[in-house]
């Protein structure tokens, strides 16, 4: 993961999205955030091209951009920022992500089958008709997500967190949910069939450590 620059628009404290040199590679040159970028269409196209032409993508900041009808099959993202992005009709098999941030993003009609995403954050994101079937989603942050008609079936969700998530018509069938935290969730028609629910954490009583309790020892 690279350190990112601030937007050069006076008074703006957002992070700048990635800029590219003549060879199409990411540079650390200061730039604008997407909101203040003077050439929104060009930078969007540059980022599309960069993703299309690279399999391993490191330190890309594409926050705020809308991705539509893009295929991320076998793409590998390391330390990338996609906060507040919109992903529409995205299709992939074997998508891979490490240390990437998808906070407050919107996923609509997306298939992320057999993905491998570890140490990745989707906090506050919205998933509508999105499939993570057969994925490894280990130690991921799904706190505060809103999920509608989506599926995490056959996924490994070890040590991931769904605190305060709103889950509607969402399935977690045949998942590994050991140490997965579902505290404070709002659920409607959610299925955990064939998942190891006894190993998951659904409330404060499941884990006194959770609220900084005064009655238990320290987390080591």
């Amino acid at each position: 993961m690279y350190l990112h620059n601030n937007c050069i628009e006076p008074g703006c404290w957002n992070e700048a999205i990635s800029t590219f040199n003549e060879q199409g590679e990411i540079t650390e040159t200061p730039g604008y955030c997407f909101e203040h970028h003077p050439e929104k269409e060009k930078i969007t196209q540059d980022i599309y091209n960069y993703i299309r032409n690279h399999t391993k993508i490191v330190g890309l900041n594409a926050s705020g951009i809308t991705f539509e009808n893009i295929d991320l099959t076998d793409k590998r993202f390391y330390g990338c920022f996609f906060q507040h992005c919109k992903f529409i009709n995205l299709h992939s098999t074997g998508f891979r992500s490490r240390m990437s941030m998808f906070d407050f993003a919107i996923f609509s009609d997306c298939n992320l089958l057999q993905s491998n995403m570890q140490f990745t954050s989707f906090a506050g994101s919205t998933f509508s008709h999105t499939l993570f079937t057969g994925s490894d989603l280990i130690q991921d942050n799904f706190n505060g997500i809103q999920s509608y008609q989506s599926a995490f079936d056959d996924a490994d969700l070890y040590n991931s967190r769904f605190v305060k998530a709103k889950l509607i018509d969402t399935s977690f069938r045949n998942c590994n949910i050991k140490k997965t935290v579902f505290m404070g969730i709002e659920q409607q028609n959610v299925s955990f069939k064939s998942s190891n629910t006894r190993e998951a954490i659904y409330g404060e009583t499941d884990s006194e450590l959770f609220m900084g309790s005064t009655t238990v020892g320290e987390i080591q």
Partner: protein
Amino acid sequence: MKIYFHLNLSGFSNCYIIVNENTKEALIIDPGKITPEIIEHIETDNYKLTGVLVTHNHESHTNGIKTLLKIYTPVIYAADSEIAGNGTVVLKGDGVISIAGLTIGYMSLPGHTPDSMVFKVGRILFTGDSISSGKIGSTSSNYSKNTLISNIKMKILSQQEDTVLMPGHGPPTTVGAEKLYNPVIAQDYVIPPIPLS
């Protein structure tokens, strides 16, 4: 600068390596266990390990220091002098240090332990066990818990909302997400409506 993440399987703690590609120097945050992969990361690109930052004196965050000191000669930065004896640079209060050609901010944040520290590199905060996604660290008394919550609000939640939090355990998060979804502290903040257009 690049940051690498390693999961310590024995204590399920997170260890981070930060490398400065310009000076070819590296530093490690919370070496819970030194694995061949961590050594490989340092050695493959010929980085010089110049510093070790410790967020607090718990075994799952410090166990690898002995191994590191057998191989390299890094300076250990921590708030507790017992971590590496005479070799420790003891940090107190809040301030800035320069290691591996990088400017690193540090903030004392007692609560989980008296020696808890948070390190800031750019817009990334390494929070140790003080706060992680959806939870705060465990404490030994109500007084400590209140101190921890107060310190988190004052020193962490006052940062920009897109500041990334890299915790000692569990997945990464951001200040904005914790304000909204951390049950212990979210009650003070209002969840804005999510646009669906």
